[in-house]
């Protein structure tokens, strides 16, 4: 660190390959949302967050990240491995028996980089608020980051957490919502319209940063830095990250069809062709 834009984009391209290869091998997993957030994870772990790869659960004097929508584990695992938390070869064990890379992230198997299990939706923000409050008690000025799906905001627990974070001035929290407009059954607009998410967060008393080009690494870094500058001022910060589900693999883009479906051999070949190897496959 710091990296130039080309290096970051090369990292993203490799992460896309990792995502496709992980889900293809076990013919299961969630490539769509993972691909949509490849740039976000890369920006967080390669450019923005302050952390040690010598992983400790407590993460004292480090920035923390919690993935609330745990089903996009393939992108999380790829970025953790390529950031040095565990060997990249282990990506080959994704969703296999006896693997630390469970279908959804867990602390249960001791995978470095994971601090709570997620998968059952809507729980991550509460956990992050608890970790943020612990940081305050510990006089630790680092930031707690989270990621949530937009469909995930349909879970009521989020709104308990959103209310608490503003009411109790949890201003060391940056919660990002992946606005890809899709969920399993279709467009969020059709399944359960979310209305104006920005107005909702503002009404609850949060700061809101919008990143409209949520698959542009430069824009993401700019937005994350802007969000970070707003911490410590009495309000939690929300980033609304507009992404394209399936980004970087043309036939997976702009559809919910690849939410939880793996590519076949031919589709994998096409996807990999569109994302040539940059850092070396595992």
């Amino acid at each position, binding site marked *: 660190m710091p990296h130039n834009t080309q290096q970051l984009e090369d990292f993203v391209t490799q992460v896309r390959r990792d995502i496709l290869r992980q889900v293809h091998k076990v013919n299961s997993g969630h490539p769509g949302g993972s691909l949509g957030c490849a740039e976000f994870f890369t920006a967080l772990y390669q450019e923005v967050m302050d952390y040690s790869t010598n992983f400790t*659960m*407590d*993460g*004292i004097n480090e920035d*923390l990240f*919690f993935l609330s929508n745990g089903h996009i584990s393939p992108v999380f695992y790829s970025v953790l491995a390529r950031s040095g938390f565990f060997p990249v070869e282990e990506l080959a064990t994704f969703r296999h028996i006896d693997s630390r890379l469970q279908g959804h992230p*867990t*602390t*249960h198997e001791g995978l470095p980089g994971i*601090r*709570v*299990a*997620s*998968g*059952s939706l*809507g*729980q*991550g*923000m*509460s*956990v*992050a*608020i*608890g*970790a*943020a*409050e*612990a*940081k305050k*008690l*510990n006089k*630790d000025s680092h930031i707690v980051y989270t990621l949530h799906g937009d469909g995930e905001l349909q879970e*009521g*627990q989020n709104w*308990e*957490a959103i*209310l*608490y974070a503003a*009411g*109790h001035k949890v201003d060391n929290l940056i919660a990002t919502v992946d606005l890809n407009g899709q969920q399993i059954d279709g467009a969020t607009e059709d399944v359960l319209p979310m209305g104006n998410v920005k107005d909702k967060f503002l009404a609850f008393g949060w700061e809101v940063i919008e990143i409209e080009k949520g698959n542009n690494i430069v824009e993401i870094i700019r937005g994350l830095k802007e969000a970070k500058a707003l911490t410590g001022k009495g309000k939690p910060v929300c980033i609304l990250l507009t992404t394209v589900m399936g980004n970087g693999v043309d036939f997976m883009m702009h559809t919910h069809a690849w939410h939880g479906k793996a590519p076949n051999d031919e589709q994998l070949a096409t996807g990999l062709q569109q994302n040539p190897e940059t850092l070396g496959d595992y």
Partner: protein
Amino acid sequence: MKKYTDSGKKDTRSGFGAGLEELGKTNENVVALCADLTGSLKMDAFKANHPERFFQVGIAEANMIGMAAGMTIGGKIPFTGTFANFSTGRVYDQIRQSVAYSGKNVKICASHAGLTLGEDGATHQILEDIGLMKMLPGMTVINTCDYNQTKAATIAIAEHDGPVYLRFGRPKVANFTPEDQKFEIGKALQLTEGKDVTIVATGHLVWEALLAAEELETQGISAEVIDIHTIKPLDDEAILKSVEKTGCIVTAEEHNFLGGLGESVSRVLAENKPTPQEFIATKDTFGESGTPAQLMEKYGLNANAIKTAAQKVIKRK
């Protein structure tokens, strides 16, 4: 038979409050979270004396459990406080994923458990919580019997690394265990020695079991009363040792017989030494409004019911 004396009726929830307040003074990592029931849970003293470590989350139990899980990341030992119903059934998935499966050191402290909640009725009288919590891998489940034991248990669970469900209640009940006791998780307490029948009780039913044993003694029946404050991990050895001698057993709890202490005991017996057993528990039913004494009488959860069950089980030997 050894006799026990009630040193003056007190509520178990006040034992929790006293234990929590003591922890506040002795362990700076202990934090407390409450979902708008500070007075009911007797958390006022902790709140007053350690305001920076007290978190009022409002009527939002799911968020409270998640926050507690997050606070362990950073080395805190969170104690959550609300009624037993809202501590378990309402937030089961939050406990399952964010606490139990994630192996977080959260202490879920639950008051107003069971029928003795009284007049509020069945919406609040959870009789399924022990079952819900004991099924979670890694969860320790404790149901204390009086003020002194609840205070001692509260202090003890802070030293235990792992999730704990601590269950206690609302009414003032006999306070008969020693004030200076050391609470040992998973260790059953043999209160009386007997040879004819074993009575294994938990929570408010322990005192009732002692009263039943006194009655039985007048009829020439010698009952061995065991206080099982820890339902998980269960003290298998203490149970087996006792039934080896008595050959029959009564289990007593303020909980549904499906999923409760009785079933846990049955499993141990079935695997090791099949033994006649009678269940003092609610029988797959909801509660209702009434005074605690009326409810315990109507649903068969008092000394008289235990005595009758003991007489019955002895005949089945």
